[in-house]
Structures are given as structure tokens and as C-alpha cells.
């Protein structure tokens, strides 16, 4: 079946502009995660959605970052007034997360964001 998809695959933007990144999770997966990977670094947790619960925003690096999810479907990550340090690959993952037996996160291909 279809995996997690993300769009766009690449985005180049000028400093100060807003960008919106999209994630389509695997159908039926209630949990959705956003991670960021800056060059030469590991993946950094940003935000997590689970069903109708309030999202865990503890990883968002600043108030310029926000994310939404419509029900158990599409999620968008918005970065306002982009800065050069926002340049990174943004990865989305989804999981059925029914408990320890359904733990695996399935990752999308990522969006490579370059802020010039």
C-alpha cells in the first residue's frame, strides 16, 4: 500500500518568507510525528499528533513553527519568517501506535528546505 508521502520534496525560499510543508500519513495511522534533520546531525523531534488529543509541541524550536492536523489525515508544518538555520530535511512519520506492539514509525521521504 501507499506509504507516507510528503510535499514538496524540495523547497528553496528566501529568508523571511513563510513556508508550508505537507504530510500524508498512512491511512489508519492515528499517530503522526514531525522531525527535523539538520546537516550532519541526528533527527530532532518537533511535534506529535495522536487522534483527537492535544498535540505534543514540546520539540518546536520557536514560535515561528506551528503544525496542524485534520483528524487522522493530512498534517501541515508551517514555518513563518524563515531563517537560514531552518534549512534542514523535515521528516514526517506515522504509526498505528496502539501500544508497544504497534510501535514502528513509518517515515516519509522528507522535504529538503533551503533558506537563502
Amino acid at each position, binding site marked *: 500500500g501507499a506509504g507516507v508521502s510528503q510535499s514538496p520534496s524540495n523547497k528553496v525560499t528566501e529568508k523571511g518568507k513563510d513556508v508550508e510543508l505537507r504530510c500524508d500519513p498512512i491511512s489508519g495511522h492515528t499517530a503522526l510525528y514531525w522531525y527535523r534533520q539538520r546537516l550532519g546531525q541526528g*533527527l530532532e523531534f518537533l511535534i*506529535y499528533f495522536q487522534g483527537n488529543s492535544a498535540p*505534543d509541541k514540546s*520539540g518546536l524550536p520557536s514560535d515561528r513553527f506551528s503544525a496542524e492536523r485534520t483528524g487522522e489525515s493530512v498534517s501541515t508544518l508551517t514555518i513563518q519568517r524563515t531563517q537560514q538555520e531552518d534549512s534542514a530535511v523535515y521528516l514526517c*512519520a506515522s504509526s498505528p*501506535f496502539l501500544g508497544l506492539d504497534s*510501535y514502528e514509525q513509518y517515515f516519509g*521521504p522528507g522535504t529538503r528546505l533551503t533558506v537563502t
Partner: protein
Amino acid sequence: AQRVTQPEKLLSVFKGAPVELKCNYSYSGSPELFWYVQYSRQRLQLLLRHISRESIKGFTADLNKGETSFHLKKPFAQEEDSAMYYCALMIYNQGGKLIFGQGTELSVKP
């Protein structure tokens, strides 16, 4: 603090040699640890999880709570094992979010 450390950025071995990718963690709770792998031009994917105690593609990893380690091992490396490997700690009571190490690039030479 919750932290995962992979001390080696790059590990280069010859085909047929044993390989060990190191991972240490810091976590006050009961750890759930994973190894994820990213082959060239492919997505990040799960390789193995400590609780399943299985061997995937010849790789094994043992959780050592005393040393807070979860090293990934394979007795005979193959060229197709060349990839980026990430150790990850799952925070189960925080929605299952993953704390990743910085990754180790494994290069297996012919």
C-alpha cells in the same frame, strides 16, 4: 535528561569483517530502544527493536542496562550493509516519540 549518543560518525570496514555500531543512552525510565537504517536514496526504516530480540539481516543488538548501551553488531559485514544507522530511544509515555542519536555512517568496502 533523555539522550542517545552514537560516538562514531563514520565506521569503515572491509567485507566479511565484524562490525559494531555503538549506542549509549540516558533515560530514567525503562528504555525502549530501536535501530533505524537509511540506505542510499531510500527512506528511514526500522531495522530492529531490542524487545523483539530478533536478528534482522544478520544484525543483532543487546540492551545492556548496566552500561546503558544498545550496540548493533554483525559478525560478517556485507557491502549492501553500507548505510546510515540511527539508534533511537522511544519515550512511550510521551506518545512514542523517538529521541535519535546523530547517526553512524557504515561503509563496507569490497
